[in-house]
């Protein structure tokens, strides 16, 4: 009983520089529960791709298993994609990324797919700083199997099942900073004003960009006693910063008050202007970022915004010193050195 979306769109829908409208970045109509945070996150991705003039066929969407991992069907229906085994999105993304470094990789995962069954894969993708936009739709429960607490559920948080979670939660952002991700952010599906720039920043970033999106499960974990409900998150959210994402070649027209902004130049030349609540904070300092997360957590607040960014960490291709050309474009001539060279190599080994 899935509903179909009418084909008509607003006659004055905006076009981006490719002449595409948002419709060109849409996918199938969602089959998730009505009001699912994941749908909002999906639409934030669509908006970011539209605004950045990304060509849909230059994108590869990867996902694992779970409600979150269904969402690649709901955006960018003209892109490449692979729906992997549970928790194995990072492996598939790594393989694809090795074969064709020119595509934009969007990895979609959830808290179960990342923090439980996929924890090992997650850790190593971070460690290698794979050039992947890893978006974790985090609702603190296993929605697809009727709402059991996940590894990111806060201790004491109580979903629809009614039993408080007895375990400590995993903070995916802290973990990501610690294990080597070079762009770490946290957003909330209910705040696209913040989430869309975070995603755009991630897309401009080269290396592993991890975004933990608190994305309420409207069916099983939107109770008044849950720490991942729309209401709780709205009441406890603390934005460390707001920022403007300025794409490459766009003139900077805004003036910023000294001390409260920090400028981060991305690999592709785009600029992120951070407007910080506290001018002493430095988002490129790992220690500072982890401390800040812990401090806010101790106050019972949920820190969001761009938490950490480090343009110095090398991504996997740089570490491995791979060909600048995508492997899938290398021909026999490029790969086979020829008989003379081969003989030389053989001779050197004799």
């Amino acid at each position, binding site marked *: 009983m899935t*509903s179909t*979306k*009418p084909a008509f769109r607003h*006659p004055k*829908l905006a076009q981006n520089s490719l002449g595409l409208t948002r419709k060109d970045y849409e996918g199938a109509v969602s089959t998730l529960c009505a009001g699912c945070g994941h749908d909002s996150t999906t639409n934030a991705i669509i908006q970011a791709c539209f605004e950045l003039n990304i060509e849909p066929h230059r994108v590869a969407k990867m996902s694992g298993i779970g409600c979150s991992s269904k969402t690649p069907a709901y955006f960018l229906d003209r892109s490449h994609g692979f729906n992997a085994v549970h928790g194995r999105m990072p492996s598939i993304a790594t393989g694809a990324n090795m074969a064709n470094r020119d595509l934009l990789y969007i990895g979609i995962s959830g808290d179960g797919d990342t923090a439980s069954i996929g924890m090992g894969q997650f850790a190593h993708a971070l460690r290698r700083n794979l050039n992947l936009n890893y978006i974790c739709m985090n609702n603190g429960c296993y929605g697809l199997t009727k709402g059991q607490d996940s590894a990111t559920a806060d201790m004491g948080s109580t979903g629809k099942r009614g039993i408080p979670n007895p375990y400590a939660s995993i903070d995916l952002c802290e973990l990501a900073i610690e294990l080597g991700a070079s762009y770490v952010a946290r957003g909330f599906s209910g705040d696209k004003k913040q989430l869309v720039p975070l995603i755009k920043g991630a897309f401009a970033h080269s290396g592993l960009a991890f975004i933990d999106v608190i994305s*309420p499960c*409207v069916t099983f974990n939107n109770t008044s006693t849950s720490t991942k409900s729309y209401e709780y998150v*709205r009441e406890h959210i603390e934005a460390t910063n707001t920022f403007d994402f300025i794409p490459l070649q766009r003139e900077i027209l805004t003036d910023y008050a000294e001390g409260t902004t920090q400028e981060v130049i991305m690999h592709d030349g785009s600029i992120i202007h951070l407007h910080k609540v506290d001018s002493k904070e430095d988002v490129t300092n790992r220690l500072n970022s982890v401390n800040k997360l812990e401090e806010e957590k101790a106050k019972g607040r949920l820190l969001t915004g761009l938490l950490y960014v480090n343009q110095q960490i090398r991504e996997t291709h740089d570490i491995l010193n791979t060909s600048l050309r995508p492997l899938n474009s290398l021909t026999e001539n490029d790969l086979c050195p020829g008989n003379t060279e081969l003989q030389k190599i053989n001779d050197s080994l004799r």
Partner: protein
Amino acid sequence: MKPTNIDNPEYFHKVIDCQYACPSHTPVPEYLRLITQGKYDEAYKVNWISNVFPGVLGRICDRPCEPACRRGRVEENPVAICRLKRVTYDYKSSDTSFVPAIPKKKNGKKIALVGGGPASLTVARDLLPLGYEIDLYDDQSKAGGFIRTQVPSFRLPEKVLNEEVDRIIEMGINTHFNHYVDSLKKIIDKNYDAIFIGTGAPRGRDLPDLPGREAGDSSIFIGIQWLAAILYRHITNAPDRVLVLGGGNTAMDCCRMAKRLGAQDVKVMVRSPREQMKASPWEIEDAIDEGIPIIDNHSPVEFVVKAGKLVGMHFQKVQVRYTNDGKKELVPLDAPPVFYPCDLVLLAVGQMNAFPYIEEDIGIEMNERGTPKLDKITHQSTVPHIFFGGDAAFGPRNVITAVAHGHEAAISIDIFCRGKDLHRRPAPKTSLLNQTMGMQEWLYDAKVTEDRRYAVPTVDRVKSLKNRLVEVELGFSKKTGHQESFRCLNCDVQTVFDHSTCIECDACVDICPESCINFIENASEEELRQNLTVAADNPAQALYVSDILPTGRVMVKDENVCLHCGLCAERCPTASWEMKKYTYNSAEAGDKIDEQD
């Protein structure tokens, strides 16, 4: 902005663009839906209650509903509402049980209707069931007025007209046909409780000062008189070459009629540019399709008469110019007049009101335009028991406006006869009913078809040009009518928002195909219109603004291109959006008046 007051009966009414634009406020989406269900009788009844002449209007209505239709803003063309009205007539059964019973015991009040056109007939239909006794006076031998004498049969077959006119006559009107009222005083002297005047705008404009007018008189006719003469078979043929002067619908009827009476070379001469012509676009199209050129920017200069016989006309080419204060001027081009030969000229350059039978001393005051001084709402004249409607009231309009006038005048007459205040009028009858059946299931067909407007088939041109009685349009088949009805966007099924239960999850914003829904900071209407995802640049369409939400924002929906597809409600986890069918029926004579306040 302040939160939208959806309890105002006009708010959701305005969202139903077609119904709101219709002078009689016919519930269009309701009858289109009934057509999709094959319920032609019920669809006809919905029409009949509201516009009294569905079969007639389904053929000749000016259709103000169609330019208003939301579909025309969503894609290229509006729903063919007018021709679907015809469908309800064409496929209904012979059942007439919808006609209300007429009480045998009268209420003792007597009403006179002067003129037997659509306005008067509407008054009669509305008042007869309430027990009024009604006398109708008309100078013709049958009722119908303008729609009988001046609308040609190739657009409106007599059979259709007779059925819908006779139905009202048979409700029990005392008819006085072939009775020209030459003195209103005589009618007043008969001591009617109220008199309704619906004598139209019967005088066709002439060009008396144009040189040659008198000399060529035998070959120059006023368009509406010429059409009436054809109906009564006083005229049965037309000469070879005919010029029709004027750019309105009467000009279109005249030129097409001339072709049917044997003219070979028919031209329509218009002073204004083509795009400013008064005729409906579809009527102009029909004329052109029949091989009649429209020659615009030509102003008549003189009738050329040789040896006592009209041989042609001179025209001056003109150009439109607008003066500084926006007034339109026709400026002659610096060129000699052009000559168009012809044997007959038909003048269709406008109609005027004329009340030669109203004596000056009976107290009916006239304004400078030659129309009576009336209360715009009650239609009451300066003589309390005399009411006006149709073209006789505010000058020439159209049939559906005349019907709307009839309804209002009937309400006024009824209130007047009961001695109450005419300005305390009955309210429209409205209801708002939830359409939810289950998960993603609605009581209405929410699917939006992508079908483009279906064309109405026409009869073979050679055949239709030979016989003025052959109706050109064949009307939709049941199947095409069914498909065309499905193009309706169900604008009467409203998106109703409850801010108190909304969790601001954005599901509705994300799913809305037309990007209508926004959650933003409140501001003035002007600013809000600019701040929406897609700017709301159609000021004729309302913004639906909610009360303040927990995040301090408001929900703002631009009603402009909403498809009423129900996806916002389907994707809403808290049923803060609901699809509710809004029924709006205009008040009728005899309805109870709210006695509060």
